[in-house]
């Protein structure tokens, strides 16, 4: 049973790392980035290509992945999301166009990687990092699992601090509440949006590298399922709430581990999808979310 808890914690941390980036961009600058899964997978792929030529350690691989993710995400913001926001008549159409544009852009990296890997899984084969396994009283925990847990904990706290206690964070939250008024108060929306998207992409990159280390290998399609699960986590916790995302990730991970334990593999994915429906119906603003105020 305690083994179950450890497994769920590690899985939840992976989910958390993945959805933190999505959560901050959606909660602050109103961009639900559906290319996040593509960025996540593509950064890990670039890192795996580099690592297959040069043997690198865990930290370097993660750094490469973070940089690739941040660059990709910033580029998507500049070339896709900002033009959409500039052109859209109102917020509702902008929201939908961003979703559709994101889905379109997200298929590009997936298609490229499918083409390059022939849809085979890929991992960090040349990496000098070796997983060690700790056992304590019959419980198993890998060093990678430990790193994942640590990263998730530290980054959640750091981002929560960034959003709550810095002037950047204040400006970002102001944009989230009312972007026009925030701009009138001197908030530089464009720059902050770029920064947020870069941070979000960097987190996706880190999650990609760590998940690849944790599982050994991932496939081109790995981002897609995670994307919908991340959506479930974010609405469960409440859009824009870092603590909510952490709780949501753990709830989803624990439910999945339990379902896996008691029913066998097939129904695991239904947990996330079912969760989306249930949460949206019962408490659309999430557990910690603020009541959504529709601006017309």
């Amino acid at each position, binding site marked *: 049973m305690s083994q179950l808890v450890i497994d769920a914690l590690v899985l939840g941390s992976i989910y958390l790392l993945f959805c933190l980036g999505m959560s901050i961009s959606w909660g602050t600058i109103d961009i639900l980035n559906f290319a996040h899964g593509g960025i996540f997978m593509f950064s890990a792929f670039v890192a795996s290509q580099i690592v297959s030529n040069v043997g690198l350690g865990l930290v370097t691989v993660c750094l490469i992945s973070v940089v690739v993710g941040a660059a990709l995400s910033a580029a998507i913001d500049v070339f896709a999301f900002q033009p959409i926001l500039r052109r859209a008549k109102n917020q509702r159409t902008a929201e939908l166009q961003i979703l559709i544009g994101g*889905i379109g852009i997200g298929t590009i990296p997936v298609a490229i990687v499918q083409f390059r890997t022939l849809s085979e899984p890929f991992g960090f084969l040349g990496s000098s990092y070796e997983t060690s396994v700790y056992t304590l009283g019959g419980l198993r925990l890998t060093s990678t699992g430990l790193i994942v847990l640590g990263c998730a904990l530290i980054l959640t706290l750091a981002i929560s601090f960034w959003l709550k206690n810095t002037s950047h964070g204040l400006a970002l939250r102001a944009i989230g509440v009312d972007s026009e008024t925030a701009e009138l108060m001197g908030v530089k929306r464009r720059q902050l949006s770029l920064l947020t998207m870069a941070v979000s992409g960097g987190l996706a990159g880190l999650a990609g590298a760590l998940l690849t280390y944790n599982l050994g290998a991932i496939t081109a399609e790995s981002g897609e399922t995670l994307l919908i699960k991340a959506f479930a986590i974010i609405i469960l916790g409440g859009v824009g709430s870092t603590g909510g995302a952490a709780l949501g990730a753990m709830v989803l991970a624990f439910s999945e581990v339990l379902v896996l334990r008691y029913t066998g593999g097939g129904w695991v994915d239904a947990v996330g999808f079912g969760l989306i429906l249930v949460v949206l119906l019962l408490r659309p603003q999430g557990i910690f979310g603020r009541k959504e105020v529709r601006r017309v």
Partner: protein
Amino acid sequence: MSDFYFSNIVLIQSTFTVLLLALSIQIQFRMGVFSFAGAAFYGMGSYGTAIFVLHYGFDAISATAAIVAICAVTGYLLSLILQRLTGLYLAMATVAFVMIVTVVAHNGGELTGGSVGLFGVLTTPEISVPHLAVVCAVVVAAMIFSERGSMGRRIEAVREDPELASAMGINVARYRRMSFVISGVLGALGGALNILMMTAIAPENIGFPLIVLALTIIIVGGSRSWLGVLIGALIFTWLPVMLEQVGTYQSIVYGIIVAIAAIFMPGGITGVVTDLYRRRAARRDSAALEDEAEAERRADAADDEAAAELGAELAGTGAHSAPTGESR
């Protein structure tokens, strides 16, 4: 002609079924309901027909009728459940519904054939392209009807400004519920006809890829009218054949096309064409206006001259200072 027909029969069939799939999602977009439920109904239509034919010995027509009725009812129930949601939240709830249908297809055991799916759906009477064409013609005729006259205006009002629409006495909630029912009918029809043609279905043929395909078609063709959907369906069924050298890069090209269309031409191809037409009409109008203004200016100038002459005359007679045209 008949050579072309027989060598491309699969493509012709899928043009029709893909058209039905895309219409089942577009009809909801047109009513301002951002839902992907059509993709789920398409999956249910395929699986339902296969199950009715294989496990219960239905013929093609009664199997299709049964699953269309089931999907219409499911659509109605779904609309009741989801009626509080709008925008992104509604979109994601329907994506979740699509994914749940896929998970059920994966885990349905013997009923759905698990990850292998169902195959060998052969029926009498055999359904062929003429049947498809008739069904699509009826559907398109209904779409044309719904885009014209007072019906068309009501739907536009429901999409563009629900508050205004309900102030005008339109029951917006009812239109939204109806959109789910119609989506259920169209999606199920598309799915049913698809399996009756192709005779096999597997979980990887339904779900998220269907959403992406339908979105691609709607966004590139244009979401406002059935014509846009038809153009999109034609492009994305035939483009892969036309561009055989693209081959493996196909999905990369698709992604780029969708992204560009979403960013730069939110109205799709039909939107761009309509805009061009309107802009040209506007230019014609403004050119006409300019001509008028020019004529007026000339008339004014003539008045001024006359006034100046009059002024000069007056000055000549030693009256007040001459009025000039400048004051005008």
